[in-house]
């Protein structure tokens, strides 16, 4: 509702600014009518003339029409084929005359056909509107014009920019204009000197738009010419056939397509030739039935070639000789060597910084992944690591936490408040579930760890299926509040979403909290006492039952909070926990059982490793997971007690 109001308000303002004198009004309709077929066809490939006609009409209403068209407010009245503006209202359409801007009707939208320019056409319209918008009084409009320029730069934009740049009152916009002007100069500047200066100005600038401006300057085409002929054009590099840059087959194919060498006769072609030369069940004197072997086929072909029935095959050496007589070059499409040299130098200066930033970005991703694994595993570090209880249902506690978050969002529509409510509630829910599990099941199995594993697995499938039956198997949205929505953008390369930062923070908080509880509180002391020697602890007046229950609840409760965090960036499904359980166990085992620091080390190692492998092979995410697990298996063979291995008596517990 408010968005609509605001839009209307903006509209009125813009209308007022661009209100046109009435006498020209007849013409704008006729321009549209002339191009009606194009506008209705609504294809980027054919729309050009229609946009040009509007832009070059010089009519005051043209910008308004283009804006409205672009915003899908241009309608065709089916009854008489007249174009009108339309604004959607609650009960239909408010129809506005395109020439006068007056409301000429309101009601249901039957009989009006909406023009639906696709994103490609909208881009073209925006580019065409640059000339109007750059001179607009409204700063927002000018900013939009600059966006359009940045998106699809065109030669004429350069002059436009240069004319308005000096009059720009807004310093931020002006800076943006100046930068854009330099970017455009790189590509469309008049003189080479001007372009070289602009290019050199971008040394070390890793912004995407800089690279986007430089790359076209460095575009090349591949040519082949006799070796002794002088090189034509602005040579980028000489190529040697048989290298990675130019494989032999490709080089030879270039000669073939240039008509400089005979077509290479491959196996398939030879086969076809043999088939074409079958005579009386024989080819080249060899019976067809014997041609089920490549060697026989080659021999038959050779016989045919000798007889002159088919062209002879070229030999490897002949081809190499032939290629040796030609020079293969990449030629810059840009004729000026000065410009391309400068661009190449600038690109090179960017390269190293770029690589560094890419590593930095990968490092951030890895840290983020590590913090997610840590958060998922930290509860387990307590129940498994400290208490020695294998809880296969740990993943389900994470899932319960995530569902709690989703349920809270159903009740509390404000995302910020709902997250604030959901975090403690998820803890409570998972804590309760954990205590119940401990009291009802695990308590009976303290001396049978393998059976704890199986029993908690039973619990795990039961919880998972119950949640699926009750809430359905479709993924549930757990939406982050707006202040967590965007990313922290350092530059075009290095950025990380706020949610991930928040998860990272949460992980740190829990690390600190747990260390505090275990090392600095009475509860922590009792927990350590009970895990190290329950009978001794009991004789010191500690109630082991109570401590076990509380510890288990604490570990489970943290899993619940982890669930809310994970749900915020992934999807909430009943299988959510299952996806983390094996990884979590590995995190704890790799890090070293019985130690929170170990879990931190394990999570960091696994996160770094996974991202590292992933970046080595970006098209296959599964491979990273596979090799990561293999690594973990091998790692445990050689360090069975994990990274941070406890020594002495503590290790026995």
């Amino acid at each position, binding site marked *: 509702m408010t968005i609509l109001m605001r839009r209307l308000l903006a509209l009125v303002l813009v209308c007022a600014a661009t209100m046109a004198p009435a006498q020209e009004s007849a013409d704008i309709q006729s321009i549209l009518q002339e191009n009606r077929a194009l506008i209705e066809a609504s294809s980027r490939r054919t729309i050009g003339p229609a946009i040009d006609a509007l832009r070059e009409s010089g009519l005051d209403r043209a910008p308004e029409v283009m804006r409205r068209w672009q915003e899908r407010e241009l309608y065709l009245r089916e009854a008489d084929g007249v174009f009108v503006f339309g604004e959607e209202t609650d009960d239909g359409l408010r129809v506005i005359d395109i020439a006068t801007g007056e409301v000429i009707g309101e009601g249901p939208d039957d009989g009006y056909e909406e023009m639906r320019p696709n994103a490609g056409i909208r881009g073209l319209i925006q580019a065409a509107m640059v000339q109007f918008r750059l001179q607009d009084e409204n700063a927002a409009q000018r900013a939009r014009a600059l966006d359009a320029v940045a998106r699809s730069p065109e030669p004429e934009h350069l002059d436009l920019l240069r004319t308005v740049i000096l009059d720009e009152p807004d310093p931020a916009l002006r800076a943006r204009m100046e930068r854009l002007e330099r970017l455009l100069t790189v590509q469309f500047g008049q003189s080479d000197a001007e372009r070289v200066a602009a290019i050199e100005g971008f040394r070390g600038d890793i912004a995407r738009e800089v690279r986007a401006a430089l790359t076209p300057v460095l575009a090349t085409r591949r040519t082949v010419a006799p070796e002794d002929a002088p090189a034509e054009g602005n040579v980028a590099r000489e190529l040697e056939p048989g290298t990675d840059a130019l494989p032999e087959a490709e080089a030879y194919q270039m000669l073939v397509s240039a008509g400089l060498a005979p077509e290479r006769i491959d196996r398939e072609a030879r086969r076809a030739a*043999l088939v074409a030369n079958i005579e009386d069940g024989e080819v080249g004197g060899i019976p067809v039935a014997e041609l089920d072997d490549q060697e026989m086929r080659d021999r038959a072909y050779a016989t045919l070639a000798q007889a002159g029935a088919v062209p002879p095959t070229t030999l490897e050496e002949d081809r190499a000789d032939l290629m040796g007589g030609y020079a293969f070059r990449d030629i810059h499409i840009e004729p000026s060597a000065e410009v391309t040299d400068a661009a190449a130098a600038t690109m090179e200066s960017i390269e190293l910084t770029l690589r560094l930033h890419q590593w930095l970005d990968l490092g951030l991703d890895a840290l983020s992944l590590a913090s997610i694994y840590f958060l998922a595993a930290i509860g387990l570090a307590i129940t498994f690591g400290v208490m020695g209880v294998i809880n296969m249902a740990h993943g389900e506690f994470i899932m319960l936490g995530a569902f709690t978050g989703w349920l809270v969002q159903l009740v509390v529509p404000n995302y910020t408040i709902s997250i604030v409510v959901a975090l403690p509630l998820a803890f409570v829910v998972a804590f309760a579930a954990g205590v119940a599990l401990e009291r009802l*099941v695990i308590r009976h199995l303290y001396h049978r760890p393998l059976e704890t*594993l199986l*029993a908690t697995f039973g619990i795990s499938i*039961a919880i998972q299926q119950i949640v699926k039956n009750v809430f359905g198997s479709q993924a549930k949205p757990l939406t982050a509040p707006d202040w967590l929505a965007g990313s922290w953008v350092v530059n075009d390369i290095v950025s990380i979403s706020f949610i991930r930062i928040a998860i990272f923070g949460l992980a740190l908080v829990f690390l600190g909290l747990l260390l505090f509880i275990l090392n600095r509180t009475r509860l922590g002391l009792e927990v350590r006492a009970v895990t190290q020697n329950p009978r001794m602890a009991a004789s010191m007046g500690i109630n082991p039952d109570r401590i076990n229950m509380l510890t288990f609840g604490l570990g489970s409760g943290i899993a619940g909070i982890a669930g809310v965090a994970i749900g915020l960036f992934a999807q909430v499904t009943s299988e959510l926990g299952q996806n983390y359980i094996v990884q979590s*166990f590995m995190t704890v*085992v790799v890090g070293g059982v019985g130690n929170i620091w170990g879990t931190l080390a394990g999570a960091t190692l696994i996160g770094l490793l996974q991202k590292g492998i992933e970046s080595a092979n970006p098209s296959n995410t*599964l491979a990273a997971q596979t090799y990561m697990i293999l690594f973990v*298996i091998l790692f445990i063979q050689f360090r069975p007690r994990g990274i941070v291995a406890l020594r002495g008596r503590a290790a026995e517990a």
Partner: protein
Amino acid sequence: MAQGFRERSFFARNPHVLIFLACLGVFTLAATLMSEAMGTGALSTSFTKILGQTLCLCLVAIAMDLVWGFCGILSLGHFAFFGLGGYMIGMWLMYERTRLIVEPSLAGAALPPTPQEISDAIAGQIFGVVGTSELPLVWSFAGSLPIQLALVVLVPGLLALVFGWLAFRSRVTGVYLSILTQAMTLALALYLFQNESGLRGNNGLSGLQNIPHAGGVSQAWISLWFLWGSALALALGYLLAAWIVSGKFGSVIRGIRDDETRVRFLGYPVEVYKLFVFTLTAVIAGIAGALYYPQAGIINPAELAPIASIYLAVWVAIGGRGRIWGAVLGAAAVSLVSNWFTGGGAPDIRLPGYTISWVNWWQVLLGLGFVLITIFAPKGLAGLVDLITQRRVPDRHGADAGPDQSALREAEEGR
């Protein structure tokens, strides 16, 4: 010490072997007579297949019981070996079937095909759906039945040998070993999920029920053949397992289960024993898988997911660990009941406002039931049989059944 028992025959000492073999024989005969192939049609072909599959599951359960119930290694990776066996036989089935389609079609061409052309055409058919048309290296022997049959045994066996050697050598035991085997299963499943593994990724191998060279035979008969084959394999597997656990070897592995350290101090090479049992059971699992998947028709990496191996442990635990017939009982009962529930056999319960559909709620029942059995009936269904027959397990070789004592915390503290 075992001298006194040696004088009696193996069957006399293990009456359950004969009883089991008799039951299996009667079952197979009955299933045969009632099958669609025999014309009575009391058992549909798809149900005959399910029975055959169940027998294979019983076989892998025996393997699981050997390694867990008798040797105390809770392996969460035996279903992976089972799946590997299936993959190995599946490769031949797919290759051969495709070859029989491709060869006549190529024979119609103007030139007789070269071996390379045949192999390319087969690869194009098999891998067309996953975006390649080259035969991966792992398919090198797919054209040869004897080699693939050998691989059914060798691949799971070697994997188990290498993995077991690494794990037992570093003295990884107890729950750590379980987690490690689970990681191995997950890694294997993830690896197979990748297209690069050359086993058709997520798609897996399909159409395995169509046996090459048996085009004229109806599925009714094929299902019966496999039922017989599975029954035979189960009988042999049972005999082998019973023979292994009844001798001195059996006593040693039970000793390892109950207290590994003591057995080691007695001078037995504990690692070798464990490695042997681990590898042998992996081989048995592989064979069971090779019989199972031609009946199921499809194998894909999801079959190898860690959860499948946990289910295997669940069957054995429900049946009763440490007794071979317990494992068989558990696997047969749970998989058939499971089939009945998920197949919609159980009537829905209509409560006011909600209908309990067993297709969806069966998992809950299974999960909770399993928890109850673990807590209250550690001996599983076999314990029930004990209750009825009032039979007490003679304590000849240490405890036969029940929770494994090696994991007792106090025992560990005592070290």
